[in-house]
């Protein structure tokens, strides 16, 4: 289930503006700000010794006890959620992050790659605080770097360094990295794929099936730039593909309609692939607050955990 992006006009004032966030140079600090911002939405202060692990976090259903309503989220996003706590659990999570050249596009002051790295760092930081092991696979058309999930001293810093390295990726190709990930991730894990998915989707389903069949919980984050969503250009220009270098001289007014159509169709197809496999899918534009992504991540986790419980999977 895809979580709708919050309306910008009604964005809660305590969400950190991504432009401001990206101004923080240190990636771990950036992730910490997001996580703390997220926690401040859940608790008043996460540093006052309360255990913040919770096991359940789901939409409010008629009959639920309103005492467990997350009032902060209700105030920010008008959504009703129940939060419950749970004992600490050990989760292995592997973050697959796309560092191909298409990710180096950005119409804002930062690129999709910067945003994706911050998202991955945020998730890693969050899970680390949870006591979960976090691993990393950096890929473009091939796996470029692999850090197995760990929860050791220094591993988070190692992760941050890997995420902070400049992207030197080439073209986007999901097939080989997903195959490789399937072979690398042996134990049942949480797999988070962060990419713009600007690549043909013919083999995506086939590549995701092994991951699902292996019992991994897969969450897909599609990171897109607002300009890729809206195609706001109005001057004739020569558009250059960052991955292939191909150029195209075109009149935006004449190209916009077709572009939006095809882009929407692509995203729908992607969503259908994910939903068809029961994967959590979220489209995140780079101008959206990362707390919301973390929020949706956590929710997706809860949903996955509930389904597993229903299936009798420990």
């Amino acid at each position: 289930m895809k979580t709708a992006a919050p309306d910008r006009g009604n964005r809660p004032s305590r969400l950190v503006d991504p432009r401001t966030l990206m101004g923080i140079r240190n990636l771990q600090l950036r992730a910490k700000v997001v996580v703390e911002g997220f926690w401040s939405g859940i608790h008043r202060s996460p540093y006052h010794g309360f255990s913040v692990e919770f096991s359940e976090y789901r939409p409010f259903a008629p009959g639920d006890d309103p005492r467990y309503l997350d009032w902060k989220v209700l105030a920010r996003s008008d959504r009703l959620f129940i939060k419950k706590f749970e004992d600490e659990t050990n989760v292995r999570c592997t973050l697959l992050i796309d560092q191909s050249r298409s990710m180096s596009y950005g119409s804002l002051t930062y690129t999709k790659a910067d945003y994706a790295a911050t998202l991955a760092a945020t998730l890693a930081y969050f899970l680390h605080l949870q006591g979960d092991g976090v691993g990393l696979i950096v890929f473009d058309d091939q796996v470029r770097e692999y850090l197995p999930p760990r929860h050791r001293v220094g591993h988070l810093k190692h992760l941050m360094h890997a995420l902070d390295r400049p992207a030197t990726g080439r073209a986007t190709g999901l097939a080989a990295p997903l195959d490789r990930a399937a072979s690398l991730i042996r134990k049942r894990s949480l797999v988070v794929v962060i990419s713009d998915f600007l690549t043909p989707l013919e083999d995506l389903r086939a590549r995701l099936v092994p991951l699902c069949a292996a019992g991994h919980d897969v969450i897909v984050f599609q990171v897109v730039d607002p300009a890729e969503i809206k195609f706001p250009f109005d001057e004739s220009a020569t558009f250059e593909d960052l991955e292939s270098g191909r150029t195209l001289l075109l009149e935006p007014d004449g190209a916009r309609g077709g572009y939006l159509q095809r882009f929407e169709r692509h995203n729908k197809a992607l969503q259908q692939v994910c939903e068809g496999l029961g994967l959590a899918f979220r489209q995140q534009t780079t101008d959206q607050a990362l707390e919301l992504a973390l929020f949706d991540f956590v929710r997706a986790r809860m949903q996955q955990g509930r389904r597993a419980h229903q299936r009798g999977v420990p």
Partner: protein
Amino acid sequence: MSFLAPLYLLGMLAVALPVVFHLVRRTTRHRVPFGSLMFLRVAPPRLTKRSRLEDVLLLVLRGLLLVLLALAFARPFVKAWAGGQAEEISGKRLVILLDTSASMRRDAVWSEAVRRAVNAVEQASPHDRVAIIPFDRQPRVLWRFEDGSGLGPGERAAAVKDRLSTLQPRWAETRLDRALIMAAELGTDEPNATPGGVVELVVVTDLQRGARISGLDAFEWPDRVVVRFDVVEPARPGNAYPEAVADRRGLSGDVDPVVRVRIRNGPDADQEQFQLGWVGSGNQLVDPIVDAYVPAGQSRVVSLPLPTEEGVEVTRIRLLGDAAPFDNTLYLLPPKPRDIRIVYVGDESEDDAARPLFFLRRAFVETPRLSVRVDQQPVGQAVTPDALTGADLMVATGRLSTETARSLADAVRAGGTLLFAPNDVNAAQALSMLSGRVSVAVEEADVTEYRLLGAIDFDHGIMAPFAGPAFSNFAGIHFWRHRLLTLGDEPGARVIARFDNQDPAFLEWPVGEGRLYVLASGWAPADSQLALSSKFVPLLFSLLETATGGLEPPPPIRVGDALTTPSGAETVVERPDGTRGSLPADEGVYPDTDQPGIYGLVSAGASREVAVNIASAESRTEPLAPDELAQRGVPFVLPDPDPEATQQRAVEAEERDVEARQRGWRWLVAAALAVAMVETGLAGRATRRARVPTEDETP
């Protein structure tokens, strides 16, 4: 306004480019990196009805910049501002010189020359003033500048053609120098011409080597005069012609009299075999006909015997086998020797070898040109003045009576020449009377052995022939006896030679109109070896030449030379073409020898014939090298193979000159620079405004 390079105006079409660029929103310069083009399809920029012109002022400035640059490159100029230059281009004075000399009679040369002369008039611009000067020995004006006034170009050409149709080539030689000088002066002195205008002389001629150009050496060519030669060449080059060398007819004792003729063949001739013969009554050659082989560039002397046929008039010799027959007839008259009369006053027998008359008679041998008669006048009889009338030279050696001396003195005073060689002191006493001077003392010199001639005045006309080193040695002549002449103060007396003791040996005295020559020693063997020396005969001939004014035959008469006629009586001239002319009694000169042939002059019952031939220089028809004209400062130009192109180039050169003075392109470039600066400023502002919309600005 005109343009030197109008093609550059096509650059103005480039004004359309900024318009196009504006309408397509300058797309090619703007590059937008994008994540992926997989969702984009080709959508090239289009001009739609909604396309709008942005930055109209920028567009106008860019278009204006292109227009100014195109105009500047096109090099504009305004002829009307050139100030009268246009009139100077076309207002030239054209003088056409047409060669009418004898060499223009060669095959088709004359007709081609007339055609070219008419063509030159037709090619002249309406503003040109035209004159035509035919020339040969003398130039004359056939068409004056003002004759074309009021006539259109076509009318002028037709009128000139009419006038030229009356011309024919003549027989005279080519005096190209006189013609060029006259034409240059005519062109520059023309009163109605534009000051500073060009004078162009077009010379239609065969430009032969025989043309006289020496007169150009001292000629100062006026400014702005150019000469163009339009050379007409015959179909066949080369020319051979005959020249008289020696006419040995009439020489007594010759068994076979012949006429020696030199045949000259031009260096560019292609004929080498010729025939020479006398022209008979049927205008054909009569026997004997002599064959002659003369290679090109050489000459041969051929001996032509007199005709065997009786009654053939032996006044015309003709050469056959030559491509140019205009000069192949040679007119000549049988030579008549000149009669010279010498009066010798003396009693001795002409056979007395010891006396002067013996040697005098034998010194003068009859030649075809000279017949010397020595008339002896005895001393015993008084020599009357009548006896001395007509004497070319008087000679006296012995004692003279008073009357004889007086007669001789009178004859000398009247212009005669007397050679007095007294053979003794007594005979020498007549010297005072003969000379009219009383201060001359004569005595017999005391000669020991002999005297030699010492100092000789070779500057004197009589001794001049002996001036050469081969002839100046008189030391072999011994003088046994001589009279000693003491001159005293004798003004006018000139000592021609002295003995080795400085005594005068040979003297000259001007007496009245004539001259008295005195030899201090006689030439008889008793006095000296003079008569026996090789110097005696030439000395006497030299004296005779001085006395008669020259023994050489008169130079041949050429076409155009004047004939002297006896004055005091009307002269009838019979011309070679059968017509007759007459000269009044006081004229004395007949100038109209305008054709070759035999002229007859009849005056006071006496007649003589004169042979007139074409000047031999006119027969030298090989081309004259242009360098020779250039060396004499002739400002000539080579024939223009394409006059229209030349005219066009002249116009273009003048236009370039006008444009170079006006330099309109500088102002245009300056304006273009100003426009470029304004455009740069405005374009910079426009560029700063134009950028990719930010997130806040995206609708």
